């Protein structure tokens, strides 16, 4: 009995180290939150979609996009497939698989090594560390990215995604990956696009379920098989030819609506020529320079815009500390909290969603502009773009009513806000005479 306790502790620690069993194979996760949302929106209270749909959606996604260890590009068009112009398949293979070095010492498994613990294997923004981070890591599956040079509802350019990887997102847990080489960054950018396309396509498939009778498959493989059998018939009768025509029409219609149209037109085509959507940033007027004699008037113009035409104070607060509107949510959260019966301020009302994998909703805070921490970058041009285009997925709107000169004035004012003590601005008001020169 003398040494029983140390032995017991030792053996328990060994068991702990070994773990409880084999690690499951790395797999993409089902978007259970979207499925639950669709059930709440389209089925009678408490009903669920047939379980077969989970497997069918899994099978379609695996057929088109493969698995984390063996990812596939959804190449549908034989000539000049758009996805090949958007994503490099070698980049995807290099990012997706397990972490290792190949015989040429090239690092593989980059996404799993650097990104998956926050963004999740699936790119759902729900890796193991996600619940502990504020803000939550980005969920790529909605195909929305905040920091980009393209307008709202456009996908970002490769350059935008590269910028985020190189610079990180200041003020969040997203670090800079500046030490990685260009090839590694490019590989990760392509895999982020891959996960985005996959996730968006999964959402489309789930949205299709409400158009089906319960149990009716998305793609009827029995019908497809029947069609293949009929194709093989040599010298078909007139009746068989008619039957073949009907089968072909039905089968191709289904395949086009579930696979072709959705993937090619709705998911992939958006990424082609994303660069063409870049918003041009005009040069700043001379008055933007602090040395210019009109700079103070320019700042005052920006300050007026902040309170009046730009209406920035409504969210960012009268003093710019970000206390104007504190009960808004971002689009990733709004996507499911708008479901009837869900109140983001009452946990009991959304328990089913958090059980399905949603992260507890947190209101999005307008940026505190006096801190000089700019998540999307603090270069004047970057701030110009965010004012002009808005920030995707957030309540920050685009400003089509503002001229470029007015936007530059706002940029100047926003950049000056962290030093507001120097300018002796009144707490609120637009009287230029009150400003000490």
């Amino acid at each position, binding site marked *: 009995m003398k040494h029983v*306790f140390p032995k*017991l*502790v030792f053996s*328990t*620690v060994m*068991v*702990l180290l070994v*773990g*409880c069993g084999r690690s*499951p194979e790395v*797999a*993409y*996760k*089902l978007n*259970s*939150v979207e499925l639950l949302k669709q059930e709440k929106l389209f089925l009678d209270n408490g009903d669920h979609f047939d379980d077969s749909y*989970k*497997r*069918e*959606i*899994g*099978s*379609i*996604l*695996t*057929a*088109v996009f493969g698995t984390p260890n063996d990812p596939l590009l959804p190449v*549908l*068009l*034989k*000539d000049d497939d758009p996805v090949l112009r958007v994503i490099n398949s070698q980049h995807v293979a290099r990012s997706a698989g397990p972490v290792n070095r190949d015989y040429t010492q090239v690092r593989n498994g980059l996404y799993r090594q650097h990104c998956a613990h926050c963004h999740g294997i699936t790119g759902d923004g*729900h890796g*193991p560390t996600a619940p502990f981070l504020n803000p939550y890591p980005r969920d790529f599956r909605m195909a929305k990215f905040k920091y980009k040079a393209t307008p709202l509802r456009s996908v970002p350019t490769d350059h935008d995604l590269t910028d985020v990887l190189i610079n990180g997102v200041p003020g969040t847990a997203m670090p800079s990956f500046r030490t990685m080489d260009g090839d590694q960054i490019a590989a990760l950018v392509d895999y982020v696009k891959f996960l985005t396309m996959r996730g968006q396509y999964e959402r489309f498939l789930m949205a299709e379920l409400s158009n089906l009778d319960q149990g009716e498959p998305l*793609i009827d*493989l029995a019908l*497809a*098989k029947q069609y293949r059998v009929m194709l093989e018939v040599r010298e078909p009768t007139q009746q068989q030819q008619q039957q073949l025509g009907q089968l072909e029409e039905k089968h*191709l219609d289904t*395949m086009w609506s579930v*696979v*072709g149209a959705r993937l*090619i037109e709705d998911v992939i085509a958006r990424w082609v020529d994303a660069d063409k959507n870049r918003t041009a940033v005009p040069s700043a007027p001379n008055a933007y320079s602090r040395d210019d004699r009109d700079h103070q008037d320019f700042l005052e113009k920006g300050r007026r815009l902040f309170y009046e035409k730009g209406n920035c104070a409504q969210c960012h607060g009268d003093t710019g500390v970000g206390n104007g509107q504190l009960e808004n949510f971002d689009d990733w959260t709004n996507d499911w909290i708008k479901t009837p019966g869900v109140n983001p301020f009452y946990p009991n009302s959304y328990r089913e969603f958090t*059980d*399905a*994998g*949603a992260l507890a909703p947190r209101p999005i805070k307008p940026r505190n502009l006096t801190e000089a921490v700019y998540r999307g970058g603090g270069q004047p041009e970057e701030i110009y773009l965010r004012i002009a285009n808005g920030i995707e997925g957030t309540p920050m709107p685009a400003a089509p009513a503002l001229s470029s000169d007015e936007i530059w004035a706002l940029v100047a004012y926003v950049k000056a806000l962290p030093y507001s003590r120097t300018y002796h601005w009144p707490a609120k008001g637009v009287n230029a005479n009150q400003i000490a020169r």
Partner: protein
Amino acid sequence: MNLKFYPSIVTKGLVLLWIAGLIFSGGCYRHPSAQSLEYEANAVQALRIEINSINWDE
């Protein structure tokens, strides 16, 4: 210096309970959202054949 440690039965019990807690809260814990994608290998194969046999260019 004598650094021998003679834990009481209560301490031993607490340590074992703590380790057991670690095992069952950490080692075996699976987040409810960790529902892996289910798929049927045969269906995947059949779907790939269908997808590849269609001339999407038309």
